């Protein structure tokens, strides 16, 4: 059934663009969004491979990994991961997943593709800056991966890069690997600063008539808040990265006590950014599932305003909690109390968002196509991440749990739901809009269930490993007597991880097959209300034939008295449509 409003189609430029200008050096936000998606999915595979090697070593220490015998010494020894490479693997896994998967996938792909469409704009505010932001992170990815091939190997001081370990090559034996890591990070930061300026300026200034702030789709709220958070928090770490690079190369003393510096300064600079960063990654994931829920419950989101205020409150509070990563780091112990309190407070806006999402299902008429499965899966698993954070927020309990697998399991239960479940939900949901074709439902459901089941099998056991005292970043933990009994757990988690990786194959097949042979998508296959569904699938260059006018809130599903169970934002009032 069609909405009575005419679908709005646009037509593009008069002139034809060359292949290079259309697919490579495009200034169109939709193409740039797809480029970000391609990059992040590729880097996800690399990050997944590092995880495979790590998990293999944890399950069967000092045994060769099948299929990796070709890696030359001294990186690997006939397929066996040595301790040096193990440290490089855990470092690069974290760095790749946070900075080169999570951010480009959630912000770069979905933010770029959707923000102009959802606000009714023809493109981002600064299209050429947008293009530059993609090519900057593309180059940064090459710089980062180059670290695997330089003498001394890739960065190996953890994705957190604590000094002084990272500040003097003699401590790690890694020289150019960490320098390249710092340069890649600095470029990545620059890329997202450029992108962030675009996100905010577009969302603030280029909204269609009638689109007040309180009528913005929640995805736009989360993306813009994430962009603001990033913009305001990354500065100190940019300074810190320069300071660390200088310590390593020109003999400065910032983080080297031996030369007069301070070992803790890096941690403060890192976590002042690092904590807001986790919300930069988490909020857009929430934004995606918040868009998907109303579409498949056919009713409004519960508590739109409460959620908006919670998003903003999360952003502000995120600047006040950073030292909960540093309770046992050597800071004055009296600082633990104020930071424990702020950490408790930040769970309030979270709880509001989560409970509101749960309440959104009440009274619905819920269907479960693949995007909805992933969105619900994201909510259900994120809850585990959220509640386990309470353990770590207590400084007392953190004495034991800090630096153990409990932390690893906790953050995988916040990041994975947001980035992977949320991001994949977004792919399945907006694939029709992006590529003009529907994805295959059967393959999608297979993908979901394998991913959901195996993900939980990998990480639930790791909570237990953490409670048992299993330290992080430790090659061969079962050499310790007190951890010997965890051998079975580590092997179980590794089997599950292999299944998790293999379970992405149906998705890869589905993605590429659907690109060419999927059923053609209509303008609004999901019968949704937000502005991106007002135009064709995919939208033309310029997005809309004429600038849409917004008449109402974004989630008017099953409005009493309406003829259909959805009422798009861009549809004139029923009376005006002559109904």
């Amino acid at each position, binding site marked *: 059934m069609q909405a009575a409003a005419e679908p709005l189609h646009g037509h593009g430029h008069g002139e034809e663009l060359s292949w290079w200008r259309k697919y490579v050096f495009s200034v169109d936000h939709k193409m740039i969004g797809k480029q970000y998606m391609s990059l992040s999915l590729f880097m996800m595979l690399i990050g997944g491979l590092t995880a495979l090697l790590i998990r293999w070593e944890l399950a069967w220490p000092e045994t060769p990994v099948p299929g990796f015998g070709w890696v030359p010494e001294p990186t690997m020894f006939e397929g066996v991961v040595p301790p040096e490479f193990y440290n490089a693997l855990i470092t690069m896994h974290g760095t790749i997943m946070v900075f080169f998967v999570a951010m480009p996938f959630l912000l770069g792909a979905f933010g770029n593709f959707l923000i102009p469409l959802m606000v009714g704009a023809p493109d981002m505010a600064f299209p050429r800056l947008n293009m530059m932001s993609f090519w900057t992170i593309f180059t940064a990815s090459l710089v980062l991966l180059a670290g695997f091939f330089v003498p001394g190997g890739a960065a190996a001081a953890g994705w957190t890069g604590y000094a002084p370990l990272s500040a003097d090559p003699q401590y790690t034996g890694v020289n150019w690997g960490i320098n390249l890591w710092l340069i890649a990070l600095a470029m990545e930061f620059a890329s997202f600063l450029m992108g962030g300026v675009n996100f905010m300026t577009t969302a603030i200034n280029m909204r269609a008539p009638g689109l007040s702030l309180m009528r913005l789709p929640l995805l736009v709220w989360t993306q813009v808040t994430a962009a603001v958070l990033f913009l305001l928090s990354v500065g100190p770490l940019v300074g810190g990265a320069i300071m660390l690079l200088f310590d390593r190369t020109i003999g400065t003393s910032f983080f080297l006590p031996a030369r007069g510096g301070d070992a803790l300064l890096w941690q403060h600079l890192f976590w002042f950014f690092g904590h807001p960063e986790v919300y930069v990654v988490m909020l857009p994931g929430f934004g995606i599932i918040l868009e998907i829920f109303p579409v498949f419950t056919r009713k409004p989101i519960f508590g739109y305003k409460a959620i908006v205020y919670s998003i903003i409150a999360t952003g502000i509070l995120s600047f006040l909690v950073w030292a909960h990563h540093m309770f046992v780091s050597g800071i004055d112990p*009296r600082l633990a109390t104020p930071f424990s309190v702020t950490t408790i407070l930040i769970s309030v806006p979270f709880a509001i968002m989560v409970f509101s999402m749960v309440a959104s299902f009440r009274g619905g008429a819920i269907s479960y196509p693949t995007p909805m499965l992933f969105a619900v899966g994201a909510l259900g698993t994120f809850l585990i991440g959220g509640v386990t954070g309470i353990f770590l927020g207590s400084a007392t309990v953190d004495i034991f749990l800090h630096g153990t697998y409990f932390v690893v399991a906790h953050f995988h239960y916040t990041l994975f739901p947001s980035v992977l479940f949320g991001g994949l939900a977004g792919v399945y949901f907006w694939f029709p809009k992006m590529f003009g074709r529907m994805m295959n439902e059967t393959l999608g459901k297979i993908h979901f269930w394998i991913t959901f089941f195996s993900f939980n099998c990998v990480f639930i056991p790791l909570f237990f490993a953490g409670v048992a005292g299993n330290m992080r970043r430790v090659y061969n933990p079962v050499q310790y007597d007190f951890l010997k009994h965890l051998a079975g757990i580590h092997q179980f988690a590794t089997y599950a991880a292999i299944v998790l990786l293999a379970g992405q194959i149906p998705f890869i097949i589905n993605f590429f097959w659907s690109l060419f042979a999927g059923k053609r998508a209509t303008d609004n296959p999901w019968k949704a209300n937000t502005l991106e569904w007002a135009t064709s699938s995919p939208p033309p260059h310029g997005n809309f034939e004429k600038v849409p006018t917004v008449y109402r809130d974004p989630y008017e599903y099953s409005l009493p008295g309406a003829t259909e169970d959805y009422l798009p934002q861009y549809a004139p009032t029923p009376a005006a449509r002559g109904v």
Partner: protein
Amino acid sequence: MLSWFPENISTFGGDIDRVFGLIYYIVGFWFLLTEAVLLYFLVRYRRRQGHAPTYSRGDTWSELAWVLVPVAIVLALDLGIDMAGGPVWAHIKEQRPADGVQVIVTGKQFNWNFTYPGPDGKFDTPDDVTIENELHVPVNQNVLLTLRAKDVIHSFFIPNVRLKQDVLPGRTIRGWFNATKPGQYEIACAELCGFGHYNMRGFLIVHDSNGYQEWLNKQWPPAATADAAPPAPEHS
């Protein structure tokens, strides 16, 4: 999950475990309740013939109460957790007993050095002894730790004592514990410190009072001549 903790042999370990247990039950209850409600809604409100969705937006205060009241309860419980944990933290990290056995702990790439002051009770005297990877202490007595690092940040972790403290080059940090059961327990490093991080395995040896005296005598033989040279540092 609580049964997965390593055996606790420390005076303050039980307090930490109790706070963990408190969080576990509070959080566990809310987690199960929320998942149950979610699951119930997901099943109960499936799309069915003849059942139209309810247009509820949650923008009136009476509707929002369903969210805000649980949130207020969660907040109150969280603050309660903080208040339960606060005194324990202060006891372990902010306070330190006045007397006890003294040891200097130095973390370095890639082992732990333990320096004992010897019979004169003072450091930086000729009778100091440094032993690699073995921390010998008497049972039921305070052990006063001075924590240092030689090169990079390490983290001194004794799971059975529930003790963890990062050690920093260029800084001295004080810690303490009191072990309640004799035996041998492991020490690990809990902060990535280089390629040998995984291998920084040390041992805490808690002696009963006889055993401790024996160990002391072995390290510093009660010499017939008072100015006998102290034994060379050894791995006992």
